[in-house]
């Protein structure tokens, strides 16, 4: 695997609870890009993300093929899971803020590493907030309960919390699905800023969002990878008929 590829699936298949979730997916994610994964719900987008940081949940599941994340095959048994999760952070569709202050939310990932140095924690918190473009809105009230923030702010706090750990990759699972257009716009702006230093994988079933913010993308349909490539190309001259139908809104 070359150094230019930060995440790569090679003929990756996944079965869980007796069903095929992914069938022979092969794709690459390059450093410092926003890689989009689009497709109707149930296509395996979230499952793919969750495999990458070892948070896939099912009673029983099995995989074939390979999935490299930061040069490491993560589907093998002996991968160090917790260090992996610190380098590959994730934000969910619904914002989950912990029942503590904004500050404590931001530094949770550092606290569980055993970091107690106040300066280190504060630095990380500020860094996270600035990365998620939330700093100006909350700088004076870091000690107030995080649940008092608005929905859009809460989701940006979740991104900030993930960024406070300085991950190499940020996985976003439909981060704006429950938000209004203005909050969505703010998050998209934040993502565009972030890609100068980080790699982002954005899952969304909002094709317009994929078109707006991603550099390259993949189209998953019911576990099959239909097409992957430069976003501009996919949205103007898709190679597959199904892709054309999906982005034109004829189904999905």
């Amino acid at each position: 695997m070359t150094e230019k590829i930060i995440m790569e699936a090679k003929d990756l298949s996944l079965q869980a609870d007796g069903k095929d979730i992914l069938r022979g997916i092969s794709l690459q994610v390059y450093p410092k890009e926003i890689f989009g994964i689009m497709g109707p719900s149930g296509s395996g987008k979230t499952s793919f993300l969750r495999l990458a940081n070892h948070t896939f949940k099912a009673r029983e599941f099995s995989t074939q093929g390979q999935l490299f994340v930061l040069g490491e095959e993560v589907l093998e048994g002996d991968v160090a899971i917790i260090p992996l999760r610190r380098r590959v952070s994730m934000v969910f569709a619904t914002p989950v803020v912990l029942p503590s202050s904004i500050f404590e939310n931001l530094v949770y990932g550092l606290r569980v590493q055993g970091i107690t140095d106040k300066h280190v924690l504060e630095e990380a918190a500020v860094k996270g907030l600035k990365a998620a473009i939330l700093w100006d809105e909350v700088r004076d009230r870091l000690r107030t309960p995080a649940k008092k923030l608005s929905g859009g702010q809460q989701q940006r706090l979740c991104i900030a919390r993930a960024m406070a750990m300085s991950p190499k990759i940020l996985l976003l699972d439909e981060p704006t699905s429950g938000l209004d257009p203005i909050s969505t716009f703010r998050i998209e702006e934040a993502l565009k800023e972030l890609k100068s230093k980080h790699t982002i994988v954005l899952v969304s079933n909002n094709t317009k969002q994929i078109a707006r913010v991603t550099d390259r993308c993949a189209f998953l349909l019911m576990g099959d990878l239909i097409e992957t490539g430069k976003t501009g190309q996919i949205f103007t001259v898709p190679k597959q008929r199904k892709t054309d139908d999906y982005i034109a809104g004829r189904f999905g």
Partner: protein
Amino acid sequence: MTPKRSEHIALGLMVSGAFLALAILFFIIAVIMIKGLPHITLRFLLDNPMDMGRAGGIFSTIVSTVYLLVVSLIIAIPLGVGTAIYLTEYTKEGLITKIIRFGTECLAGVPSIILGLFGFILLVIKLGFGWSVLSGGISLSIMILPVIIRTSEEAIKSVPASYRDINKVLGGTRWQGITRLVLPSAAPGILTGVILSVGRGIGETAVVIFTLGTSLRIPFSLFDSGRSMAVHFYLLAREGISMNNAYATAAVLVFSILFINILSYYLMHRFVARRR
């Protein structure tokens, strides 16, 4: 009988049933207060019993009761919360969890007099702890364990699953998730269970009389015998020693339970308010 008429009769019966239950409660409390309150003085609370409880106060029985409850909670809380954590966080639903749950249900169903006898035979005699705070504390902890397990389990289950997800993606271990997120969020519920069990323990006589004994002296060491307020009340009334002091003791008991409930309610609300 018309349907409307039977509806009225059913409703009437249910309402009177509800009021009867309430009336019984008030009657009991009223009797205890009317007969007990006049005999409660500061000296009654702070003097040790004299002449088998005919005279003096109940100070040593208050100390025994608190001591007993503290020891039993020290044993039952870690065991109970630990079991609840294991059942909810570390196992999948299956045969093992079913067996553990069935076991705790059975434990809850064991009559307290049997637990008392068990404690007497095993702890007091076999293990040689004698009638003591230790024997009483262990026996009482067995009695309250099911309550603590069940309430803790419910409290832990009600913590949003997403907190555990967040702990995971932020690189926390399962144990860190439990200690930093799950237990703090479940604390009010667990506290409710602890208070319920304090309420049960404070009024328990069968277990206590067999294991703590009936000594009227203040217990200092874990191996000293003592007499809880409930047992003291029982003996005063049963032996006809002093009905006045018996009612006064009962009134103190009722007030303690009331006080514990109000205090815990207050603490719980403060706790919840701070975390929201």
